[in-house]
């Protein structure tokens, strides 16, 4: 009887100490800005989720414009700012029909501003089922005033993962979309065969997104849920860096050129990082990449490997195909989301660090191409939720961009 009473007391104590929820969200990532709480407020990069920004020229080529896409209420919106994000124009809707959208830090809309008013936007649509999605693309030919009807890029339409889209454009103006795709895993499962991870597929457009090549496989055995980093090499060719599943479930990174021509799958893969991280599962923590004029790929990533732990910086020489200068940026468990940017001979690193009270945004720089690093500095903090930080560059200027629940979208000048 004593135990029954005790059990009852414990039960009621538990009931009283925590709210029990039914049917609603456990938490909201929605903006906490007062201006976003008004029912009639327009969609905005502050109120929406995962805004992604790039610099480009305005309609008359006379002014620098900040181009932004973001997710809000099942729509991807496009907007511009001529005052470095202080104010934004009323947004244009990219997908007129609302759809479920993956809008977490690893899965965010992408934007490229091309020549003559061309704007390209990609994102991942959440299809029925867990981990399922389709890669979507839409373009504007009038500087973002209107967008063509979005298309689904992946030709395989099974309710599986076609997610983590990335987009890039080469020096010839060819547009590339690359994503993580589980169609080969599906085939292997049906044949009762084992298959490590997922695959990377891509398409190329020679006509500014009017049409795309057939879906091509770049590699088998990528990790399932980390974003893919892409950048142009020194000649304007496209390079991708991603977390791979090497034999033995080692989830280090691989790097490869993406050819505009058809090439056999798995022909271009090179191992870029060496941490020996064996893990059953996916870390949801993709790498970042920035390539300099010597064709050195500067990389930032997260690992919990045998050899290294924490946030890492390293270089991969695309000419000699060798890795060098792998070192730990921040080994603490509260550090995350490293970003790297090279400008001339200076390399910048940025990452998030929870200091026990607030989330801080930290910067470190190297003036000798990544060989030695100066002390870190904290440039911003927030008390509530925050997106992955990102860089935005305009010729010689560099800004850090950070979207936070309490403050909205902010730009921080790093290099004037």
């Amino acid at each position, binding site marked *: 009887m004593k135990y029954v009473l005790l059990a009852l007391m414990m039960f009621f104590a*538990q009931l009283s100490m925590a709210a*029990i929820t039914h049917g609603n969200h*456990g938490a909201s990532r929605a903006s906490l800005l007062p201006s976003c709480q008004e029912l009639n407020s327009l969609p905005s990069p502050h109120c929406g989720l995962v805004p992604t920004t790039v610099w480009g020229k305005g309609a008359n080529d006379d002014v620098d414009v900040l181009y932004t896409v973001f997710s809000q209420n099942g729509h991807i919106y496009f907007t511009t700012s001529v005052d470095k994000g202080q104010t934004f124009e009323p947004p244009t809707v990219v997908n007129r029909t609302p759809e479920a959208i993956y809008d977490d830090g690893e899965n965010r809309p992408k934007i490229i501003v091309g020549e003559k008013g061309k704007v390209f936007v990609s994102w991942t649509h959440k299809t029925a089922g867990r981990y399922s999605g389709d890669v979507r693309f839409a373009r504007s030919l009038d500087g973002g005033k209107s967008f063509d009807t979005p298309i689904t890029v992946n030709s395989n339409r099974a309710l599986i993962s076609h997610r983590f889209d990335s987009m890039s454009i080469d020096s010839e103006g060819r547009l590339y979309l690359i994503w993580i795709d589980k169609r080969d895993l599906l085939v292997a499962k049906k044949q009762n065969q084992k298959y490590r991870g997922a695959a990377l597929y891509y398409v190329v457009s020679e006509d500014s997104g009017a049409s795309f090549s057939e879906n091509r496989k770049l590699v088998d055995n990528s990790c399932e849920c980390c974003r893919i980093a892409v950048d142009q090499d020194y000649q304007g060719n496209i390079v991708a860096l991603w977390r791979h599943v090497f034999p033995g479930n080692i989830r280090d990174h691989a790097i490869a050129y993406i050819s505009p021509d058809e090439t056999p799958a798995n022909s271009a893969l090179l191992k870029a990082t060496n941490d020996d991280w064996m893990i059953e599962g996916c870390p949801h923590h993709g790498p970042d990449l920035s390539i300099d004029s010597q064709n050195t790929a500067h990389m930032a990533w997260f690992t919990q490997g045998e050899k290294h732990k924490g946030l890492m910086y390293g270089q991969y020489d695309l000419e000699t195909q060798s890795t060098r200068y792998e070192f730990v940026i921040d080994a603490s468990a509260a550090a995350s989301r490293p970003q790297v940017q090279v400008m001339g001979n200076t390399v910048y690193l940025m990452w998030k660090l929870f200091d026990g009270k607030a989330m801080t945004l930290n910067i470190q720089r190297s003036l000798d191409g990544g060989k030695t690093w100066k002390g870190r500095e904290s440039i911003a903090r927030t008390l509530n939720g925050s997106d992955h930080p990102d860089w935005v560059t305009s010729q010689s200027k560099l800004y850090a961009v950070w979207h936070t629940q309490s403050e909205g979208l902010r730009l921080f000048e790093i290099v004037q």
Partner: protein
Amino acid sequence: MKLHYLSKIKTVMGLVFAAYCGMLHAASEDVQLKMFGSDSLVDITSAKSGQPFMMVLWSIDCPPCIKELSLFRDFQPQLSKKNIVLISIDGSEPVSVIQQVLADHQLGELDQWIFSGEMVERLRYAIDPEWYGELPRTYFYEREGNRVAHSGMLTEKILTEWLQYSESLPKAVSK
């Protein structure tokens, strides 16, 4: 004869009870999920009154975590609100999705929590400043709050050994 008769009744009652439990488990909206905030860990440990228990962090976005839920389902007779606490870190997912996954794995009767609206990193830090966020993550609490952390999927062997070990620990005096 009488004994045999009684055992039959017991069996029937057992089946009826199992069916009833099955119905309960099928109704996902009955799965109670408590909000885990940055001060909830103390509530959890104090409610356990110093008895050994497992605290398991999981996410619907983590395939090994889902496999681990299946393992807990198979160990169901040995698991109760007293010896296991599950915390979903899916604070931004609809609660109904989490409830459904738990109901599907017949784990709705256990002590279930979900990350609240607080900053995820703050909640992680409150649980363990040394935790990088990898999942699944289990803390084995021995008596008086001493705990051992484990990253990655639990195996049948680990779970069996822990349950045997925790049973063998001398019981704390209830306050």
